[in-house]
């Protein structure tokens, strides 16, 4: 007992007297500042790379809401970005509506389709849900490829640029802003009562229903929010690069999003951000190495999954635990805690 008190005192003296909230606030402010000033120190090429990384951050964070927090393993998430991108571009090109209205139409259609798909398939789960969403994704992608006259097929579709410039800077700020709003929205949801329903549903759906949670309703809601966010990303993406093609709907895109989340940290708020930005960055750094970069990336994935299956966030968590165990805590089991009372 004495040694426990001594180590506790030691920790009290050793640690910085900063409230966790303040630490988070300063950390986020610093990150915000870095994101704002970064473009002034890097080339246009790298500004574009980071813009892409923010696009994938939105997809990864929104998939994490669905596949991570709610436990709905969708393999069609990238398709909602594809739908958002094509709807917006087609509405502007074919129907002649204003650009912002086209973007809005893309987002709304994405939400409507996700609602219908959600109602149809969210009574199933696990592998069955993964298969249904994958099949949906393939149907949409194949339609876009085959419907050449309407969608441009494999050649793609020229989407009007949002800011009338090919300079990447405005798009960089646009996507960093959307990514920040996405992360804030998801953090808000997870801290609200809805976050409790999501987590309870993922943990044990039968128990959640018995506790009064309408699990189907909240699963559909999660599906709509996540898909809607992917639709937002897709709708803006098309008008940022000026060309959209069915490549956006390939399974590789989905696999990449899942890798970003898993490498960063499934069911964490910072994980998908870390995963998307760091892996995109690494992919660009290793670009000169051609195919070898795939081997290096794969090796990194294997190493992280083997030793830190909670991704980067587990690495940080273990580091924090290691410091605390070293300086403060003696192991106390839950049973011992109750006995101590």
């Amino acid at each position, binding site marked *: 007992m004495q040694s426990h008190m001594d180590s506790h005192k030691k920790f009290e003296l050793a640690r910085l007297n900063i409230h966790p909230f303040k630490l988070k606030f300063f950390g986020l402010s610093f990150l915000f500042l870095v994101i704002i000033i970064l473009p002034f120190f890097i080339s246009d090429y790298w500004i574009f790379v980071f813009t892409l990384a923010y696009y994938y951050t939105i997809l990864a964070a929104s998939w994490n809401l669905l596949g991570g927090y709610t436990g709905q393993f969708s393999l069609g998430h990238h398709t909602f970005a594809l739908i958002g991108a094509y709807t917006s571009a087609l509405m502007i090109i074919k129907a002649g509506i204003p650009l912002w209205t086209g973007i809005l139409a893309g987002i709304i259609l994405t939400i409507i389709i996700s609602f219908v798909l959600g109602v149809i398939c969210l009574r199933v789960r696990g592998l069955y849900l993964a298969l249904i969403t994958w099949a949906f994704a393939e149907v949409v992608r194949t339609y876009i490829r085959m419907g050449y006259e309407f969608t441009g097929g494999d050649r793609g579709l020229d989407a009007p640029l949002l800011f009338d410039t090919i300079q990447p800077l405005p798009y960089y700020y646009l996507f960093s802003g959307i990514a920040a709003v996405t992360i804030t929205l998801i953090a808000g949801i997870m801290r609200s*009562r809805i976050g*409790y*329903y999501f*987590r*309870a549903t*993922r*943990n*044990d759906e*039968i*128990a*959640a*229903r*018995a*506790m*009064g*949670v*309408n*699990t189907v309703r909240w699963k559909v809601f999660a599906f709509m929010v996540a898909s809607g966010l992917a639709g937002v990303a897709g709708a803006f993406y098309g008008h940022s690069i000026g060309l959209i093609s069915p490549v956006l709907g390939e399974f590789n895109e989905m696999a990449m999003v899942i890798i970003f989340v898993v490498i960063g940290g499934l069911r964490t708020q910072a994980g998908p951000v870390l995963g998307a930005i760091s892996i995109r960055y690494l992919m660009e750094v290793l670009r000169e190495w051609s195919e070898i970069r795939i081997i290096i990336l794969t090796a990194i994935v294997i190493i992280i999954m083997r030793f830190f299956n909670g991704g980067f966030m587990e690495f940080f968590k273990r580091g924090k635990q290691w410091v605390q165990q070293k300086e403060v805590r003696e192991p106390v*089991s*839950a*049973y011992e*805690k*109750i006995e*101590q*009372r």
Partner: protein
Amino acid sequence: MDGQGKYLLNVENIAKDFGGLRAVNHASLHVKEGEIRGLIGPNASGKTTIINLITGIYTVTEGAIYFSGNRIDGLQPDVIASMGIMRTFQISRVFRDMTVLDNMMVPALSQGQTMLEAKTRAEELLEFALLAALKDEPAKSLSGGQNMLLQIVRGFMNKYLRLYVMDEPFAGVHQSIKGIILKAIKTMNREKGITFMIISHEMTTISNLCHQISVLHKGELISEGTMEEVANDPLVIDAYLGG
């Protein structure tokens, strides 16, 4: 009985088939408000199936279930929970990755309580159950007995709770935890008027705790009354001791 009578729960002649197997065969139960009812029977007699039918996990094949005069068979489990029926599971089903406190919050929030109300109530109940020191621990770190205890006190978070259905709440738990569970049941019954229906194989506990006992055998209700009455019923003796 038309389901509109003096009983809080009326189970009217229900049957449940699983393919060719009839798990419950035209059983009827009538439970008064404020009663503690024991539900006993040999293994595979249909006790848990009846609980699953009452709480909407299964749908009835035949018959009807009324709660406070309203027909509830066919309703979804979350709707039944919102009407004031909570349950526990034989194998504890806590939300393992959530903390003890977060587990408590779920039924309260789903019934419209504010975060502050739910948290205050949860902390009171955890204090009562001697789990307050563990409130920030993930539920998966608890022992089996503590898991069962958490599962039980979690049900009390539903502010509309009128009927609490418990499936083997004393099975495999330490005596000290069993004492807390018994205290919780008696206190809630006495002070809040909550009605309980308890499945257990612990005859002494059931005898001391329950006002009335119903005995199931092969999906049929074979006896009902006080422990003394059912213990002397030849049908019950035959069910437990017969071939």
